[in-house]
Every structure is written in C-alpha cells, then in structure tokens.
C-alpha cells in the first residue's frame, strides 16, 4: 500500500552503528576489568599469568588455587550480579514508567535484609568468628540465603497480588513497593533492637553486599537465572519501547500492556531476589547503570537493555576490584564502592547531557 522505494536511509544506519559501538566498547572494558580483577588483591598476580592460568597453562600451583578457588568465582559473580541488577533495573524503569525504579525501590532489597535478620536473630544463623579477613561470619549461610530469598519473594508476591486486584498501574506498583520497603526496614530495626552485639554485627555485615560470597556451587544457579531474565527482557524490547511511548500507543500497536507489566515485574523481582539473597544488598547498580547507558545510547530498549547489562558488569567488577585494593585484607564492602565509583561518573554524565 505504501509507495516505498526500498531505500534504507544511510544516516539512520550510521546512527544505530554508533550505539553498537558504545556497547561493544563497554564489552571490551568488561574483559579488561575481568583480567584486572583476578590479577589484583592481597597476592598480586601479573595479568599475563592470569591469562595463562585461565587457559590451563598456569605455572604456579599457589596462583592456580587462588585464581580458581577465590578470584575467578568472585569476578564471575560480579559480572553476573551486575548484569542481573542492571537489566532488572532497566526493565522496571520501563515497565513502571519511573526513572527511580530499581530492585531497591520496590522493597525487594529491604525484604532480603529482613529475611537475613530473621535468620540470624530469630533462627540463630550468625556468630562471631575472628579471622583477619572476615571478622564476622554467618555460620549457616544457606539458611540465611533461603530465608532472605523467601522474604524477597514474599515482597514480590504482595506487589503482584495488589497489582492483580487493583490493576497493574505503575503508581500502584511503586507505592506498594515503597510501603513494603518501609515496613521491612522497620522490621529489621525492630529485630536489631532485641539482638545481641554479635547478631547485630552479623546482620549489618550481611546487608553490605559482597560478591565474594559466591561459590562454585551457587554461581551457576545465579548465572542461569540472570541469563534467562536478560533473554526474556531482550525478547520484550519492542514491548518496552511501546510502553515507553504510552499505554494507549502500546495497546494500539498490539502490546498486551497489563500482561507485559505483570510478567516483566515478576521476572525482574525474581532475578533481584536471587542476587540479593546470595550476595546481600548491592544498591545503585540497578538504578544508575540504565541511566548511564541512556546518556550514551538513548532510550531505545533495543540498545539500552544490552548496554545496561554490560554497564552493570563494568560497575560491579570495577567496584569489587577497587574495594579489594584499597581496604585489603579486610572485608570487601563492594556495596559501598558501587556508589563511590558510580556516583561521580553518573553526575558527570548528567552534566554532559545526552550523546548526540
């Protein structure tokens, strides 16, 4: 019906190629940081030896053990968790049509912290152990993880139930999340009031998210969940673009807005819950990585979702590496470093405005 002449405008193709360039560049940065993250720490291993060890040609059995048992799972966890938190954040921002949406905003992190507090204080999973690296350890990390995950999903279920009965409007979802967040924070404070010094320390310690908590046993599960969620969001990139254009426009181009919103929220909450339960609370990545990428590639979800995923990996990997260098050999407060590193970069990008 259209008198199309088959001409594809070259300037548009050039414009999209620029976005691909930004994402590919960030991906290279991930690889560089990955090697760097494994190479630095209490024992410095030269990057060349890191690569040799990773490709099975290691020369030192000590380095072998450090890399395979400690640093590699930690670096991989940073990549996986950063990716997961960032894609959850970008999806929530689109679905809820709110730039402040993130796993944090919806009370999922607070619910996880509450679950951890319950497991440590009520169920007695925490104890002091005096080692140099970890002044406080949680004696039963599996119990803590499971209870934290349970409360994360409980918060998600409440949000989804209320959305189901009151309609899936962004306002309802966000306000429910804020209310839940306040409720669980109050719950944590209440429990802390009745806890011993040891338990209090263990709860506070847990809430500082740390990618070093991942092991070869937990990592594959987290990786599968994050990969599945990322693929799901990518598959829905056109639907999120449509929702960004307004609910009515989205419906008029064939998008089932309520269902997209409900399923998208469930997936985003699930991936956040898995990460929070396993690693603790890591803020800022889910909120800010999507916005960093918006400044570079714009709001088009076709580029924003993969871009945010890569940006999340960069930020968490860089934060973890810096955390290990500056406060070694003590605990690694990666959750603090994400904001320390991310905030200045983010403010710079805000000042600079959009990439043209």
């Amino acid at each position: 019906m259209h008198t199309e002449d088959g001409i594809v405008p070259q300037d548009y193709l050039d414009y999209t190629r620029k976005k691909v360039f930004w994402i590919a560049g960030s991906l290279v940065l991930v690889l560089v940081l990955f090697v760097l993250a494994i190479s630095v720490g209490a024992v410095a291993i030269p990057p060349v030896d890191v690569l040799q060890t990773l490709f099975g040609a290691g020369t030192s059995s000590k380095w072998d053990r450090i890399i395979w048992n400690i640093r590699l799972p930690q670096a991989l966890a940073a990549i996986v968790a950063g990716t997961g938190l960032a894609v959850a954040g970008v999806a929530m921002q689109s679905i809820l049509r709110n730039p402040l949406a993130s796993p944090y905003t919806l009370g999922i992190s607070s619910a996880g912290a509450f679950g951890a507090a319950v497991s440590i204080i009520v169920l007695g999973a925490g104890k002091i152990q005096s080692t140099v690296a970890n002044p406080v350890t949680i004696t039963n990390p599996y119990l803590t993880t499971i209870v934290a995950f349970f409360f994360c999903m409980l918060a998600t279920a409440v949000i989804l139930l209320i959305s189901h009965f009151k309609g899936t409007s962004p306002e309802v979802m966000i306000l429910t999340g804020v209310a839940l967040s306040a409720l669980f924070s109050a719950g944590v404070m209440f429990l802390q009031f009745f806890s011993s010094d040891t338990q209090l320390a263990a709860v506070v310690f847990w809430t500082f998210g740390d990618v070093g908590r991942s092991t070869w046993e937990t990592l594959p599960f987290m990786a599968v969940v994050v990969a599945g969620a990322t693929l799901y969001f990518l598959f829905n990139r056109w639907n999120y673009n449509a929702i960004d254009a307004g609910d009515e426009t989205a419906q008029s181009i064939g998008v089932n807005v309520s269902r997209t919103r409900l399923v998208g929220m469930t997936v985003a909450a699930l991936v956040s819950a898995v990460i929070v339960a396993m690693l603790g609370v890591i803020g800022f990545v889910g909120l800010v990585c999507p916005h960093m990428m918006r400044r570079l590639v714009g709001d088009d979800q076709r580029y924003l979702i993969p871009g945010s995923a890569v940006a999340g990996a960069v930020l968490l990997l860089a934060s973890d590496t810096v955390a290990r260098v500056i406060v070694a050999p003590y605990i690694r407060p990666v959750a603090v470093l994400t904001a320390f590193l991310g905030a200045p970069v983010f403010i710079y990008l805000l000042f600079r405005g959009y990439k043209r």
Partner: protein
Amino acid sequence: MTKMLTVNELKFMYRNKNVLNEIGFSIEQGQVIAVLGPNGVGKTTLLKCLNRILKPREGTVMLDEENLLDLDIMAIARRVGYVPQRVETGRLTAFDAVLLGRRPHIGWDVVPRDLAIVNAVFKKLGMEAFRLSFIDEMSGGELQKVAIARALVQEPRVLLLDEPTSNLDLKNQVDILTTIREVVRDHNIAAIMTMHDLNLALRFADIFIFIKNGKVHVHGSQDIITPLVIEEVYGLPVMIGELGGVRCVIPGACKIT
C-alpha cells in the same frame, strides 16, 4: 461506494455506568469522519472501543467482513492505527519513534523493508528534515506528525485519531488536518477523529457524528449541522453562516454579567 467499516449496537459500560449505548454507524473508503459532542460524552471511549483498547460489552465492529472485536490485539494493530491525544516523548529519534509502529509486523527484529517503509512515510509527510531529531526536543506539531506517521507505518485500513488538533496553533491545526486528508485519499483508507472545533471539522471532514447520552444523536454530511442540532447536543445557541463560501459556526448569545 461499498461500506468499509460498520459499527453495530456498540455498548460500553464503565463499572455499572452506561457510557455508550447502541452506537451504530458506517463509513466508506476515503472518508474522514468527525466524532463530535461535549466533553465527557464518550468520544474518546468510542474511539478506543473500535480497536479494543477498551472492551465493549456488546456489539460488532465489522471491517471488510471481519469483526475486529473477535481478533487479538496484534491482528487489530495490523488493520487499525491509533493516534492518542497525548504523545509521550523520550530520548528517541523521530525515526525510531515511527519505527515502533512496525511492531505488529516485526518478528525478532526489523528487516530492511521496515526501514524502507518508515523512510517512505517520512518522505510522504514532508518530515525528512527531522528524521534523526530527538522527539524530546520537538514541538507539539512535529510530535503530532510523528504520532500520525507511527500509525501510518502500521499500514492500517482505518486511522483513529483522538483530538489530533488539541494543543496546536492554528497553522499546525490546518497542517495536520490537511496531512490526514491527503493520507486518507492517497492510501484509500478511512479516518475517524474526535474533535472539538466545529469549524475545523466542517472544513476537513465528510461525515459528522454527534454523540449525546451515549448514543448517536445525528449523523450525516454537512447539512445535518444546524443551529438546532448543535443546541441539542452542546446546550448552546449558535449561529451558522457562510464566510467566503465556507460554512462556519459561531456561538450565539454570549451574555457576560
């Protein structure tokens, strides 16, 4: 002329309140229809019922032998384009914003034909200059054209427009309505638009539908627009006259106390 779209006994309820009741009308290819009536009478609701953004309680919307209300929304989106009253902006180029209209036809990703269709619509609407402008930096008139272009790349048979000229200055109002007229003629489709401005409706529409109390009060061509009908529908006395050979409506007694 054969009827292209026929609306029959359409009924819509909001909670327990009857909003639309037994709405019925039909249109032909190449026609532009103006849906008129006071605020809150259900004009927008009617438009949204036609492509099932809202679900009518009863009735049929027949488009060439098919009842649109039986199709899934993706199938409707391949047949009916919709231009909402408010256009949301974001950090997108106009080209990307229009490309979104290809969503009902896209599988996993866009193919060159999608890009070519978008390109052709930009050319047709004379918008090539701001193809790569960002829509969050555009004026209201340009944004409205982007929304129309988006609906056009859906390759629709029918175009629905919700107050396409609200928020626009006089020149842009005329520009947009001229564009709609040309598009309807060139693509041999039909357009249904809700409007408030009776004079613009008189200049640009073929058929007029007045809604009152959830029903079609009257519908037909220019000659149904009389002071009596307008007073019945809007509750306001008006005068209708000719100015330079063009019919126009102006408010009658405006008493300022």
